[in-house]
């Protein structure tokens, strides 16, 4: 019986306190038959066992006791002390075994004895969206072999005690020593093109549009803002391309030819200012965007990738869009005729006869 790991497709929103938002979000997507690369989740219990076995409780408690919100030096010192201790602590055997077994399963799915995976932290708490800003969203791409997967998992855990993460929790008044984190491990998609899309136009707030940013290679370049991606606005209703701005995409990330990690390279001249998505792919993205929006019942910010091998579309993350501009809202719904009257310059305080 596994205590820490679970297949992503089995996770649902209600599992969030134990597995974190990233993993359960992917589980929800899989449950809605959205194409997501296969993978597994590690629960917060794995982190708990790691802290137990390494006897880090008192170390953490001591360091955190000296932290107060706004005391940058104290936070920095605590972060340093805890991170150093964690970095040299072993990943517990029980966790290691489960990870190894799961990784082998992924290996057989991928048909590769040491398939590349992405290892990402999966933050816990209703404000997990804000975790991005708190530096808790560590991502390690193109990781191969159990040993390295375990190292990456530990690095994710360590990120829980990064300086920004501690200040963030201190600011919110959280119990500092009780933090916990899940981890997501997924097969990597070697992406020819990848990007982000919103199920509405985040600038104008138009709910009938899907706004898509896309660039060459792995998603890092777009997510990290290292390129100006192509910018497409597509109608959900007709799939028409309403707007397309093609930009000069000068860099891309590709798997390191050495087999581990991703490297940033210059995009060859002939591809830099070429449009990276055709109408058919845009249509497929809109389809997926609509299904995801319908499933969650709210506007979503979706990361996606197109596999280099066959152009297959994968979703690698979806989270709610939080800051949609409020569209013009009248205090009370107006009748059609009073709206027509206002077109002709009749003001609402001109009482009708």
């Amino acid at each position, binding site marked *: 019986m596994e205590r820490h790991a679970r297949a992503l497709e089995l996770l649902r929103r209600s599992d969030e306190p134990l597995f974190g938002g990233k993993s359960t979000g992917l589980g929800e997507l899989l449950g809605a038959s959205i194409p997501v690369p296969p993978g597994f989740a590690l629960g917060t219990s794995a982190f708990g066992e790691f802290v137990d076995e390494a006897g880090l409780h008192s170390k953490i408690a001591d360091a955190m006791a000296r932290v107060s919100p706004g005391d940058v030096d104290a936070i920095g010192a605590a972060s340093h002390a805890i991170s150093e201790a964690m970095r040299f602590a072993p990943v517990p055997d029980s966790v290691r075994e489960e990870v190894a077994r799961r990784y082998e399963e992924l290996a057989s799915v991928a048909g590769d004895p040491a398939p590349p995976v992405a290892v990402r932290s999966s933050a816990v708490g209703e404000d997990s969206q804000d975790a991005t800003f708190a530096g808790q969203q560590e991502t390690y791409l193109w990781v191969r072999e159990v040993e390295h997967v375990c190292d990456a998992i530990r690095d994710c855990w360590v990120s829980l005690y990064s300086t920004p993460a501690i200040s963030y929790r201190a600011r919110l008044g959280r119990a500092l020593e009780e933090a916990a984190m899940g981890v997501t491990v997924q097969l990597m998609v070697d992406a020819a093109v990848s990007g982000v899309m919103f199920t509405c136009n985040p600038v104008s707030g138009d709910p009938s549009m899907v706004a898509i940013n896309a660039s060459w290679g792995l998603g890092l370049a777009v997510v990290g803002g290292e390129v100006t991606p192509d910018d497409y606005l597509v109608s959900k209703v007709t799939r028409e391309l309403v707007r397309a701005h093609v930009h000069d995409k000068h860099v891309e990330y590709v798997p390191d030819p050495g087999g581990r990690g991703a490297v940033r390279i210059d995009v060859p001249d002939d591809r830099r200012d070429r449009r990276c998505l055709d109408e058919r792919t845009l249509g497929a993205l809109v389809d997926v965007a609509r299904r995801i929006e319908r499933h969650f019942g709210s506007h979503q910010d979706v990361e996606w990738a197109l596999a280099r091998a066959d152009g297959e579309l994968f979703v690698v993350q979806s989270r709610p869009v939080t800051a949609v501009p409020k569209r013009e809202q009248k205090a009370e719904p*107006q009748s059609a005729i009073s*709206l*027509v009257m206002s077109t002709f*310059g009749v*003001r609402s305080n001109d009482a009708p*006869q």
Partner: protein
Amino acid sequence: MASTAPALGAFPSPFSIETPPGCEGWEEMYPYYALFDERRRESDENRFWFWNSMHFPVPMPAFDAICIDSPYQAVGSWQNRVFAVPPAMGIDYRIVNGYIYISGNPVTDPEKVAERAEFFQRRAGHYYANWSDLYAKWRAKMEALIAELGELRVPDLPEYEADEIAFSEDRNTAFYEVLDSYGRVLRLGDLMWQHHFEFLLLGYGAYATFADFCKGHLPDIPDQHIAQMVAGIDVLLFKPDAELRRLARLAIDTGVDDAFVEGRTPLQIDAELEQTEAGRAWIAELERVKDPWFNMATGDGLYHYYRSWLDDPSIPYASLIGHIAALCAGEEIERPTDEIQRERDRLAEEYGALLDEGARGPFNELLGLSRTVFPYVEEHKFFCDYWFLTRWWNKVREFGALLAEHGFIEEGEDIFQLTRHEVATALDELVLTWATGGLPLGPKHWPPIVARRKELLEGLAAWTPPPALGVTPEAVTDPMTIMLWGVTTERVREWARQQDGGVELIGAAASPGVVEGVARVVKSVHEIADVREDEILVCSITSPAWAPIFSKIRAAVTDIGGVMSHAAIVCREYGLPSVVGTGRATAQIRNGQTIRVDGNTGVVTLLDGQGG
């Protein structure tokens, strides 16, 4: 493109416009009140005037100026005196070098606005509440008016009056009949314009409200989707081309399609059809549908030379040739009405579902109201601008023939070089000298005037009017200017920027797609026949009556037009990219120039050189 905002006064003062060389004295063609005059300079110079290239793309012949006065008399009456649209009275016009500039009269006093709002709500409310009934009565009224015009007789001037004049009770002599008949022609025209504008503001207003509502809640919605949700499926304006498609199929079914060869004139085609029984049967079928469906104009009919298909069958015959060729190539030429209907309903349903719950009610109500008013919006053109007006010009031509017969002008068409008042004067002298047997001065007086005016119009046609004159407004607030002409604050800013003459023209994206090709600039209806396969049509405004050429062209660009432009819908139906409302495409683009039309973004790029 210039990036700095234009300073106040980006447009020339109306008093700084120079007369093109050789066109001195053009003012004599128009009434004194139509000119920029020193006596009201202070007021006129401090207003914003824009060139109404939508209705008046070329210099106005003297007689045709009636089509400025009557419409603005009529629209102002309804808008200002009947409905009392709160912030806007009527529209003033002035003529510069033969081109028409217009400017709305705002109501600025808040008390006055409130007072007018009471009238407006009561009266407009009545129309909206009873629209379908009132519109049915309107159609009957228009058909009766057209019939009355048809019955109006233009008498000739015989050497001896007929016996009845001498022997019967009911006796009017020809002098009276001629003058009375001319007066009635003018009055029937006024009546048509009165009818024309009875529903227009309210119809467009309902539609504009729906469009604004959609854009408020769905800021990126393409204009054509709004139009698609509202547009009629089975509208009158599609009937003529539907009949042509039917006749094309009939020609193939009865084996007479060989007569329809590209490059042949209608006369040549008819001559060949007359040779066979099947051909004669086909002509008989054509004759059967000509009335009313050939009462289409060859353009938006505000100039006398926009004839109807009855007068000039080259457009319908070109269309028949195209339809037959397409059918023979195995193409589908039917308008997919079921599909259009399904798509219209699907769009409405999906957009409705995307709205917040509170917005859904008004959305559906406004859509319903827009669909109720839309038959008028589309069909009044057929009744007024095409059917009535083409026949009305022909009635005026009968007076031209009378004057020509008596040597007052060289040929009948010359009547359009005289103002309607000058024609009345000429007719006065004609019937006077006919009655007295005296020597008329008219044959010496009018021909040189006509000749000079033809020269003037030719000279003025070569002049490029600026899109606007006077003071650049901070914002365009007149609901009529925005609604009827699509002249918005943004559009005016764009015009101001383009005063520098950029190589990009920006308008409204009316129909999606991107196409590059050779421009064909069509400034008057005579040039329609010059349009060649695969060219890009560049014109002031496309007319639904030009529908047949849409099967030839690759894209369309217009000077003026907005979401209401029927042509935009036609373009979408034909799958042609279209950019409307560029302000000065016909002035800036040369014939034969390569241009790119981006119907997604509304940008037209001049690819070889700066244009004219």
